[in-house]
């Protein structure tokens, strides 16, 4: 679905090392590492938001639909929850179904100001799913949530993924346990070298999806 052949990426210092990454339908991949190691940068490159890198990003034909859920919910503050979804949804029913899926149907008429961070993230997640993406990118969906809210969010992501087995996922997280829980293959970042490491220090991924 998507192949990324990254030569190097850096601003004043080298941020990401060489990397060849292939994502196929149904893949679950987690970019794990401490903050500032370039996880979000890589996610931005995968998502096509960051085009300033050496290398190539190839998309399959027909072009896969990519939905990006940002770390901040980034909802339009002057639109209600439902209106925010309707910006992306094709119909009102789809918007309400998605809100039901993230258990926020009763918040449809609220403004983002009236939501907690956890709720706002769930709206953002619903909005991402509204695109009916082939590839879903989640940037730190659990960060700054209290433990019980984070757990609830994680379970929600698990459920949503089970219902959409063909959708590929790339998750950015600083916590490997979260990634393991949703069954994602880990892609760990080494801050010192900017290299991407595979579990057990393998040089290529078992499934043949990752070649570092």
């Amino acid at each position: 679905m998507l192949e990324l052949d990254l030569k190097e990426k850096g601003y004043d210092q080298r941020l990401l090392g060489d990397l060849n990454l292939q994502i196929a339908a149904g893949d679950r991949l987690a970019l794990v590492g401490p903050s500032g190691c370039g996880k979000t940068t890589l996610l931005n490159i995968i998502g096509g938001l960051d085009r300033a890198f050496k290398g190539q990003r190839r998309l399959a034909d027909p072009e896969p639909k990519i939905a990006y859920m940002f770390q901040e919910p980034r909802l339009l503050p002057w639109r209600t929850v439902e209106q925010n979804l309707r910006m992306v949804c094709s119909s009102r029913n789809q918007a309400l179904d998605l809100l039901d899926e993230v258990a926020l149907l009763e918040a449809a008429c609220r403004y983002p100001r009236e939501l907690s961070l956890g709720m706002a993230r769930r709206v953002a997640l619903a909005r991402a799913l509204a695109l009916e993406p082939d590839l879903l990118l989640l940037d730190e969906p659990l960060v700054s949530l209290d433990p019980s809210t984070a757990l609830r969010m994680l379970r929600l992501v698990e459920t949503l993924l089970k219902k959409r087995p063909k959708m590929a996922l790339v998750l950015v997280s600083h916590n490997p346990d979260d990634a393991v829980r949703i069954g994602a293959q880990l892609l760990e970042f080494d801050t010192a070298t900017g290299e991407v490491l595979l579990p057990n220090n393998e040089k290529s991924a078992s499934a043949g999806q990752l070649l570092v």
Partner: protein
Amino acid sequence: MDSRLRDYLLVTAGLLMVWQGLAVFVADPMLPGPLAVIQAIIHEWRSGALLHHLEVTFRRVAIAFVCAMILGGLLGWFMGRSQRANRLLDPLLVLFLNLPALVVIILLYVWMGLVEAAAVLAVIVNKVPNVAATIREGARSLDPQLEEMAEAYRFTRWQRIRDLWLPQLFPYLMASMRTGLALIWKIVLVVELLGRSDGVGFQLHLAFQLFDVTTILAYSFSFIAIVQLIEWGLLQPLEKRARRWQGEVHHA
């Protein structure tokens, strides 16, 4: 009655009483009291003159206002969004911001003659730079995170205008509409005084030649009342509606 309205009426009544007291004390036709002014308003209303001149002036204000908001808004938007447009146009903007209204009015009358088009154009030329400067600030302060989100979710151009840009520009639009309305009607009076044969400014000109302070005040207050009505009837409800998402906002 809510407390804001009560305070407003209290202040107005107080000022009127002070004014009437002063007028009685001075007892000079150069300072007519509020009652005399109200009588003059009624007199001018009955003769039909007041309504005619108010209408003419209001039409000029409305045309100039709409044109200045559209032109200034577009200009400010492009200057705020494009560094190149800003580099090219900024010296011109500074020049026009500092060009006295009177100079523009006189020049346009000289070049175009004492015609309606010159009058309205003079007002527009005076106002466009102010609107542009305000909207430019708004265009520069757009949230880059929401911009990126709109990019990622492939918002259409129309969605960007209606749901992303206009709500962010709204406070700047309101500010330039408020100052715009106040500035424009003042300039329209000068334009009318210098080169038109109708409108509130023209009537003020006549009254000035006769030192008829009562008529001057009658026309001035009538138009101030109209501007106040626009503020209450149009601008404030619009603002209230657009600010719903912020919840209850209490202005100082």
